[in-house]
């Protein structure tokens, strides 16, 4: 047991003893004075005076009876009265004087010890002849008040009711004073009783004391019920406070669904753990280092240790060991230049008692780290985290809510085909009837890729490979998602589709279903090549822009989780419209917006949106359209169409778009003969790539992404179009 624990136990014992002693003192005073130590002390120190006083009271009674009896017998007040039976005046403890009719002045003699202060003092007793009642009051000089009998005070004597009221009042006052002192010493309890939600703002280390105090007041259950904390969870939290560091880390991790494991290679004093965070965490953070410092360390010492750590890119979650260390730890963690976040004592209370520890972690990290470090926006590659995937619900429903079939996912690059496939794979995890597997091709060799994936020899045939997948499916139907199929399909087309035919046969036998994703080669195989086995192979799904609402959610929801908001409601709409509902562009712009935010800044205004829309990463993402096929001639025609459209939109007339006739007229003017089918393919390709789209009337083409036009300058676009047309004309002449 620690020194602090021993001291606490001693204090509790002493306090109990004090309370017992006080109770006994007060009770014995009234019930058993002989057992009362104060009474005993008085007797020991003033016993003789008390005995004499007792005698004086008896003598007083005799003297009053003598005087009253005389008056009743003789009809006159006596002139002198003496205690019957006392013949030696030196033995008397009290002598009577008669200063007036019906008045007896009883003076205490020198028999009383000097320290009692009674010798020579007098009490005046007055008889009321009407009713025969005696009244007593201090004479001159008056005896010390402590010797006065209750019926002999200067004022009227108190009744028993008055005495009881006084006792009650004093007791109540005492209780109030004690209560005030107690509340002053423990303001937390008072505030919690007033507003129970404040319990969640108490430091974790204070909970055991609060628990006892609420228990004394018999208010624990009521407060917990008001806050919505179950008793089990409360007791678990109280045990957590006393638990060893590794058990504390495990419980904290359990609240957010993280996998807790010991961390290797750390030399920090205390306990360091590694948390693998769940995929559902709405931040781009896969793991955390969790540091629970030695409770004996000061805040400055902990910070010094943290500063000495090697510069990594992993986030460290520092669990505050005490309120005393917290100011230094929070000051360090609040500096966004480091990758350290501090879970303060109050946050630990909320983390353990409340549901929604994940939201607490997100808010904490967003407040203490650079938001770009944990930003949930994924700007490159297929979306891997469920929380970063938005929309496509109808497309997903088409696949998920039906019997397994074949699908052909056609769309341009960076439009979300891979994200969609990964979302489908995630939804089928643990499905009782469907075994879904994702495979990304890296070249034209499907069978080799599948063999490597399954750990089989490279020369294994496609039939055997599918059989191996079926065997691993344990009776479930197999859906194989094959991504990046363009190179494979290009090779297949050159060799008469040998493997695709095999896939079709396997599918028709019901052994396996396929979803193929690709761009132009897939599109050609599906729509333009009548010999392709992909014709009528499966349902064709075109992947284009994201739904408007999903884009809006993508622009606002992750921001809100980070505590960042747009200054005006229409700004996200402006952003989405400028990005042409292309999800990766929306994500890139949002990531840019986060990177532009200053320290502590949490509101995005129109100026920042404008700057983000014109930022380098946006232009970077817009590039990559100039060579959509391996055919140089087709690429050149694509470029001519794009430059023509740029000229139209940037020109003085700011035309809404171009029609097919406009483009053909350009070719004619340049003396270039382009077959209508070639141009139609170019337009189809550019639409599929989401470079252009038909306008609402359907007659003209416009850029699918309005931002696309901003990468051109009018003069440049004109010059480039002319140059491409000249090159085309030269090539035609030379052939």
């Amino acid at each position, binding site marked *: 047991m620690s020194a602090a624990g021993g001291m606490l136990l001693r204090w509790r014992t002493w306090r109990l003893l004090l309370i017992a002693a006080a109770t006994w003192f007060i009770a014995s005073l009234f019930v058993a004075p002989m057992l009362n130590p104060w009474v005993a002390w008085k007797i020991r120190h003033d016993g003789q005076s008390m005995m004499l006083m007792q005698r004086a009271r008896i003598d007083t009674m005799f003297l009053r009876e003598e005087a009253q009896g005389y008056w009743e017998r003789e009809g006159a007040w006596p002139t002198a009265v003496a205690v019957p039976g006392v013949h030696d005046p030196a033995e008397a403890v009290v002598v009577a004087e008669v200063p007036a009719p019906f008045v007896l002045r009883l003076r205490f003699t020198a028999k009383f010890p000097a320290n009692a202060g009674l010798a020579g003092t007098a009490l005046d007793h007055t008889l009321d002849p009407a009713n025969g009642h005696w009244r007593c009051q201090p004479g001159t000089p008056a005896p010390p008040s402590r010797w006065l009998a209750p019926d002999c005070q200067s004022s009227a004597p108190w009744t028993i009711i008055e005495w009881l009221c006084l006792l009650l009042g004093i007791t109540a006052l005492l209780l109030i004073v004690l209560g005030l002192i107690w509340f002053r010493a423990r303001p937390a309890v008072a505030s919690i009783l007033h507003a129970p939600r404040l319990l969640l703002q108490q430091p974790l280390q204070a909970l055991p004391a609060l628990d006892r105090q609420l228990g004394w007041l018999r208010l624990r259950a009521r407060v917990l019920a008001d806050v919505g904390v179950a008793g089990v969870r409360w007791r678990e939290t109280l045990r957590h406070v006393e638990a060893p560091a590794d058990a504390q880390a495990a419980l904290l991790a359990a609240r957010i669904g993280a996998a807790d494991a010991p961390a*290797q290679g750390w030399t920090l004093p205390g306990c360091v753990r590694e948390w693998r965070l769940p995929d559902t965490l709405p931040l*781009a*953070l*896969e793991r955390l280092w969790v540091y629970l410092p030695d409770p004996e360390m000061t805040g400055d010492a902990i910070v010094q240790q943290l500063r000495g750590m*090697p*510069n*990594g*890119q992993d986030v460290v979650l520092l669990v505050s060991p005490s309120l005393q260390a917290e100011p230094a730890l929070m000051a360090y963690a609040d500096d966004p230049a480091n990758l350290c976040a501090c879970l303060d004592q109050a946050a630990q209370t909320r983390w353990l008692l409340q549901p929604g520890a994940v939201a607490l972690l997100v808010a904490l990290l967003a407040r203490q780290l650079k938001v*770009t*470090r944990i930003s949930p926006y*994924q*700007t*490159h*590659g297929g979306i*891997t*985290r469920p929380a970063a995937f938005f929309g496509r619900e109808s497309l997903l429903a088409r696949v998920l809510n039906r019997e397994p079939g074949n699908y052909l996912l056609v769309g341009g*690059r*960076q439009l979300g085909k891979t994200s969609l496939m990964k979302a489908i794979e995630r939804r089928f995890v643990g499905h009782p009837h469907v075994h879904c597997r994702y495979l*990304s*091709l*890296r*070249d034209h060799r499907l069978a*080799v890729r599948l063999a*490597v994936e399954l750990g089989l020899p*490279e020369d294994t045939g496609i039939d055997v490979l599918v059989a191996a997948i079926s065997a691993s499916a344990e009776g479930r139907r197999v859906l194989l998602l094959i991504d*990046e199929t*363009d*190179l494979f399909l290009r090779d297949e087309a050159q060799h008469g589709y040998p493997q695709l035919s095999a896939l079709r046969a396997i599918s028709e036998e019901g052994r396996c279903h396929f979803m193929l994703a690709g761009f132009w080669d897939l599109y050609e195989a599906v729509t333009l090549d009548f010999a392709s086995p992909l014709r009528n192979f499966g349902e064709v799904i075109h992947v284009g822009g994201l739904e408007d609402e999903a884009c809006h959610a993508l622009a606002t929801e992750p921001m809100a989780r980070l505590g960042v908001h747009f200054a005006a409601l229409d700004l996200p709409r402006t952003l989405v419209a400028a990005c042409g509902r292309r999800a990766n562009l929306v994500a890139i712009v949002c990531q840019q917006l986060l990177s532009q935010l200053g320290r502590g800044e949490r509101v995005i205004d129109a100026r920042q949106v404008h700057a983000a829309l*014109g930022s*380098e*990463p946006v*232009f*970077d993402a817009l*590039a*990559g359209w*100039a*060579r*959509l096929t391996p055919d140089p001639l087709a690429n050149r025609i694509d470029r001519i169409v794009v430059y023509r459209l740029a000229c139209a939109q940037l020109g003085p007339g700011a035309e809404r778009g171009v029609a097919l006739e406009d483009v053909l007229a350009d070719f004619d003017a340049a003396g270039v003969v382009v077959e209508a089918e070639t141009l139609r393919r170019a337009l189809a390709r550019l639409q599929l790539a989401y470079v252009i789209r038909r306008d609402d009337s359907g007659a003209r083409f416009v850029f699918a992404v309005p931002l696309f036009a901003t*990468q*051109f*300058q009018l003069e*440049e676009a004109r*010059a*480039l179009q002319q*140059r491409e047309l000249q090159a085309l004309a030269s090539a035609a002449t030379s052939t």
Partner: protein
Amino acid sequence: MAVPAFAELLSRHMRRIRASAGGVAAEIGISREAVNNWRSGASLPSRRHRDRVLGCCNYLRLTEAESNALLCSAGFEPEFPVEPAVALAVRNATPPTVLHLLDRLQQLRPYPVCLLLTQAHWGQPPEREAILAEAVARYGHDRVLHLQPPFRAGEGDEDYFARLAEQCGLEGVTSDAGFEAALARRLQQPGSLFCLVSRFEQGAAGPRDVLAGILRSLSEMYSGKLHLLICGGAALADLKYQGGDLSLLNIAASEQWPELVVDDLQRTAPDVPDYLLARALHLSGGHPLLAQAALTLLTTPSPEAVLDDEAVITTLSTHPRLWEALLPVLRDVHARAAIGSWLDRARLAPARPYLIDPLLRQLYWDNLLAVRVHADGAWLEWRCDAVRRCARHVIDSLAELPA
């Protein structure tokens, strides 16, 4: 150290990749006899043919050090900056750019894949030793790989991946699948794996694409564990921005090597006062070779008076690398007209990560243009007056030639 004879070096490198004299000749645009004469030692390349020898280096897929050695043996200046071969002993000495680069790489989620694009006359990558030393400090000695894709030897890809495996210390690899499996085993070990890929763009297209596919697959399978830094210049940018077939490059973030600053020059010339470094930087416009040349001019004692800026610019405008860059471009009449009209302009075009105009793009990657940031955005400008003056000289020279 004695420089080996040009003929000996050329023969050795050609034998290594089994390149024929005809192949080399066709690639670099000279006759087979001329190449044979070089190999036999009967003749050396003429002074005008430095670019051909450089083309030969590229065709033979020589390393930067090998390229420099071959150029020197033929009496030419080295092409690539010479960097210290030893690892940096003091970590504090790591250039800030390198620290930023690795910080950025480590922050990329979920795919830590970064393209480092550099203009001509920088190393590929610049500060390679510092990058590797910093990577060793961050990832651990056995968690850092340096891939330098070789030229494909023979008909198949076996040698290609065997050589890559050799660079990674992977044994028993004879195919792309074997290479992938061996690399996957490395990734299964605890900790992230850093992989620097230099000269990615120069490898043969077929196996290069397979390599890209392997790296993409492994990046996806071991999400966040394979930290890839792929370095290159114009060709790599073309692969990323024009093609799109290599999805590895689609998932990669791009970084441009930053402009030269005084601190960079100071590390190569610690004894030169700052004002001279700043002057050299200004006159060269941040061109690495021109800056070194300017520094040499400004620090070499001259019997005449101290060189003024005009004299330095005039000298720099005759730098062979500028002529070699401009001459092939300006031979085209249309390009000559366009560039001629740009020479008087302060700004040529808005800067973009990938320039649409092929002519501007070529000038940019040849390091004749620089991106300069102004209040109204980033713009492309001529790197320095020496470049403009050189372009004018070349245009004038070509105009004097008979049509």
